């Protein structure tokens, strides 16, 4: 394999030199055909090298290949609850080694809303808002339009419930991986520090312990949170048209009516 690669490289170098010579001599048609040969040689080299190398790890290339929208969607799918841009970026970085900046997410919700307004339901999912109990969009939280309505609304307990849930989802995902990435373990440890019994001091968190502790606290809040969310979701369904069900009511009159 590497022999043919070497040969190809030599051929490419020769062709480049010939192209230069042809251009200098103003032999335009020759230059054009030489360039064609060069392109083919380079393509052959590309194919040979990828055939030889093992498929690249999900490292760098992924960053540029997957659109931001997809990256956010994957992170949300992992977490399963309305999430801040900051945590989305952290999860995306920790599990998928992709670099996303918080600022890249700022216009996302607005773009999605515009797309939904111009052509409703054209996409399988929309990155939308979580709605507060006043039916307004919650500041800074992103959600997935395909989730159940109860998941996309917030009562006063929901930020905590969602924090505990996302900690559990991160821990669960870690237990599924043969080689848990260090960044993801650090993220879990940081989150677990704010849950009673989830971690010893500053030691790295053990996913199983974290799941148990988060689950225990979750039990305390679950019933009340579910009741509050169901109530808000019912109001959303009753009072809001489709667009606002996904992106929230922003007008003063709707807000007044809701309070």
């Amino acid at each position, binding site marked *: 394999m590497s022999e043919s690669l070497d040969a190809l490289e030599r051929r490419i170098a020769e062709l480049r030199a010939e192209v230069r010579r042809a251009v200098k001599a103003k032999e335009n048609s020759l230059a054009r055909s030489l360039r064609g040969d060069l392109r083919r040689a380079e393509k052959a080299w590309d194919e040979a090298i990828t055939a030889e190398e093992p498929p690249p790890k999900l490292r760098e290339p992924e960053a540029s290949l997957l659109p931001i929208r997809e990256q956010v969607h994957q992170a949300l799918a992992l977490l399963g609850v309305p999430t801040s841009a*900051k945590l989305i970026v952290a999860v995306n970085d920790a599990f998928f080694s992709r670099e996303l900046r918080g600022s890249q997410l700022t216009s996302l919700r607005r773009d999605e809303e515009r797309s939904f307004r111009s052509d409703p339901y054209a996409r399988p999912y929309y990155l939308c808002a979580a709605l*507060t109990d*006043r039916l307004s969009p919650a500041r800074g939280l992103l959600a997935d339009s395909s989730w159940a309505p109860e998941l996309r609304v917030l009562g*006063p*307990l929901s*930020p*905590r419930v969602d*924090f505990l849930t996302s900690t559990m989802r991160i821990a669960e995902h870690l237990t599924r991986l043969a080689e848990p990435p260090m960044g993801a373990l650090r993220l879990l440890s940081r989150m677990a520090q704010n849950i009673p019994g989830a971690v010893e001091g500053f030691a790295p968190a053990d996913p199983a312990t974290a799941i148990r502790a988060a689950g225990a606290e979750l039990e305390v809040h679950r019933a009340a949170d579910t009741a509050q969310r169901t109530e808000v979701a019912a109001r959303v369904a009753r009072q809001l048209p489709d667009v606002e069900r996904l992106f929230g009511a922003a007008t003063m009159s709707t807000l007044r009516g809701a*309070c």
Partner: protein
Amino acid sequence: MNRLEELRGPMPSHPHDARAIAALAANPGCARRALMDAAGVDKDRVARHLGFPAPFGQSQFAITRGNVFEALVKENGCAELLRLLRELLGLPIAQVGYQDVESVGSHLRHSHTRALIDRAAREDDGTAVFYDHPLFSLEIAGHTSYLEPDVVAFQIGGRFRIVEIKSFGLIDGQAEPEKVAAAARQAAVYVLALRTLMADLGHDPERVSHDVVLVCPENFANRPAAALVDVRKQLAVLKRQLARMTRVDRLLEGLPRDLTFDLVPDPDGVPTRPADELAGALRQVPARYAPDCLSTCDMCMFCRDEARCDGSTDLLGRQIRDQLGGVSRMTEALGLAEGTLEPAEGQEEIARLLRLADRLREEALN
């Protein structure tokens, strides 16, 4: 009130922000500031026009650092803060409610804060614990000022508390006393505003605790730590100052009839009054300069310069000034110490101490 408007001139009354209100408690004895604040004079503009702008305005670096730390404490529904309060106050596991007041849009923040606090005080259901980005208001000498705390008010056991998040460091459990004092003064403003709101809604204002929670980064790491700070004293001073501002008649007495701090702005609002003349007007109202002014009052550079020119002992700080009881000039203090000045009646004791101090100093230097 007319007299105050004359003092201010044709500019609209300047609203007070939390820092300005907190500053009232920092140097309560200063008539100059009390009068300027009561009249709603824009002290910053005045100081600039005099050629003595205050050295305020944090560096961009400090502001960014502060914002990042605050965001960290508040992220994920105040998860870090919950941990701290569970440790510090034994906040029960069930109390984790969080409401971001800002989600309703800025034009509704004030009324929404009111509604949320009212509901929490009435129902006492204990679920809604944190109120992030609340907007309070406070009447200052007849004008409403809006306060945007970087704090979270929360309810535990039927009592509300103010949380003040500051990015100055806590090293081995200690922070710089001046910074803590400034934070306490500022938190006291919020306590007062929330108490006023409670009273307004017909609830017991005492349900707002005088112990505020101060959250700072610990030991150079970004990990937050929390401590309780009793702000009763700051509250008392603040209340007295605010009452004093509404009874400024006494301060106005004895001032020349035609005294004004008017900047005589042209149609575009650019001050046209000669700076000397304005400085002369200000000097007619006694100030009480102290080094704290440098971190609290817009007029500080002007007053410091004045105190310096006078050789005033105020420059040395309140503690030393008070120890020098009755000796208000540095030249006077030096004269007494070196024996070149005869102590006046009642100054014998301080003169004896100064001479003693001078002798000790000489001995130490030889």
